[in-house]
């Protein structure tokens, strides 16, 4: 099953003359669980948007499921960062999950009974069905994250893209979420970006570092040089307190 699902070749992205992505090459195989780490402002979200076709690269080629990204959106489930979310927003959990089916529904149509069933199933798998009528703003960070995950999964995607899924949740919930993803990974390719390199490394099977340029090594082992290159700050600071060690032991340790 070594089939390529995402391919980026020499991708450059600039916003108002500022380079955000610089010559990024990436190849994701079917059923990979790829973690992309890097500092804030390193272009992680932009990279996901390039894969979704929301951001057009100034240069380079993007292929998703063998076609251009705009044409492949139906294969992708997207879990955006939840920071910009309005807590007063008038929608229920079910409303939000159904939004994952908008593309399939088509304009001017209503959701069908089948769509609703799919939404229930997605909520069930996230253990959130009981809260289906709750207003989204009333959810905790972890609950909201699972609703957004259900929204991404409801369309039965082949690829799951997650942007900082652990940003606003506590440690036990984080572990739970990663276990859930690990489970999903048996049938779905996952690309996850995060600045939280601690937990990520215990679950993903490939890691890349992104700070404008992508340092991709295909395996979990990341050398001190790559980390230093990515973060441009002392490595000890990042490695401190990490439960699962990402880095090779430093000399003299």
């Amino acid at each position, binding site marked *: 099953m070594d089939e390529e699902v995402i391919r980026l070749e020499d991708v450059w992205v600039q916003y108002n003359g500022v380079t955000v992505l610089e010559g990024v090459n990436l190849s994701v195989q079917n059923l990979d669980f790829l973690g992309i780490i890097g500092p804030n402002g390193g272009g992680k979200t932009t990279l996901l*948007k390039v894969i979704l076709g929301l951001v057009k690269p100034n240069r380079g080629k993007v292929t998703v499921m063998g076609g251009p990204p705009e044409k492949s*959106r139906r294969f992708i489930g*997207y879990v*955006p960062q939840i920071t910009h979310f309005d807590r*007063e927003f*008038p*929608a229920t959990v079910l*409303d939000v999950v159904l*939004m994952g089916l*908008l593309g399939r529904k088509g304009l001017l149509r209503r959701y069908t009974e089948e769509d609703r069933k799919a939404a229930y199933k997605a909520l069930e798998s996230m253990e959130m069905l009981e809260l289906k009528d709750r207003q989204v703003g009333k959810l905790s960070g972890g609950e909201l994250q699972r609703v957004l995950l259900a929204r991404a999964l409801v369309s039965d995607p082949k690829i799951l893209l997650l942007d900082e899924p652990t940003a606003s949740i506590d440690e036990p919930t984080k572990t739970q979420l990663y276990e859930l993803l690990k489970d999903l990974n048996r049938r779905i390719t996952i690309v996850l970006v995060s600045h939280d390199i601690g937990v990520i490394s215990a679950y993903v099977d490939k890691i890349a570092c992104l700070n404008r340029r992508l340092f991709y090594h295909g395996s979990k082992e990341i050398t001190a040089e790559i980390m230093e290159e990515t973060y441009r700050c002392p490595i000890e600071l990042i490695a401190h307190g990490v439960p699962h060690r990402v880095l090779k032991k430093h000399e003299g340790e």
Partner: protein
Amino acid sequence: MLEILQYEFMRNALIAGLLASVACGIIGVLVVVKRMVSISGGISHAAFGGVGLGYFLGFDPVFGVLFFAVVSALSMGILRERVRLSEDAAVGILWVTGMALGVIFVGLTPGYAPDLFSYLFGSILTVPFLDLVVMAALDAVIILVVFLLYEEFMAILFDEEFATASGVPVKRVYTVLLSLVALTVVVLMRIVGLVLVIAMLAIPSTIAWQFSHRLKEMMILSVIITAVFTVEGLWLSYLFDLASGATIVLVSLATFLLSSALKKISR
């Protein structure tokens, strides 16, 4: 209160108020949740150009307003997407352009412009029958479009980016929403006038949001609230001989303050 209904102009005023409540309640909720109040202000003020055009060319200014409101709604979309102007600046530019054109047109029109004031501040007591028909037709269009695009509207209100990623033509849906705002401006103009339109788009829906967090429920609630305010304002303006549009706005404002205070105490 019932005896005032024996006058035809009062009956027309009441019908106009109720018709306006429908458009205002539904679109007001979308405007408030999407945080488009100032954009709507831009569209409604720009529509004054249409009043001027109507005077200048000698046709019913309602159609001028309809034309100007829709054109400025569409240009709003274009300014945002193509010219990459900040929304703030785009609103400001449209706002003054329409008003300046209106003033020039009115100035070019020979003679005195008799009910200019009523377009700016409303004159629910002098609504002609033709306007009732126009209002009812616009209401029908608004209800139909919102019914057909309800899920898409909710999606772009919640998260434009995710909607795009799910395959919703976000820019087009947003432009449709702006056009519906333009139609609502036309409907509301007779009630409170172009200058006060944003008050009616913002206040009843904000009150509805204090009591409900479901989009559909908020729309229904907002329609009812607007209807109550209109009737109440109309009655008070008759009783005390006040300008009807401004009275309706002040009744809304007073209720909003009261409900906000109650909300605060009950917490």
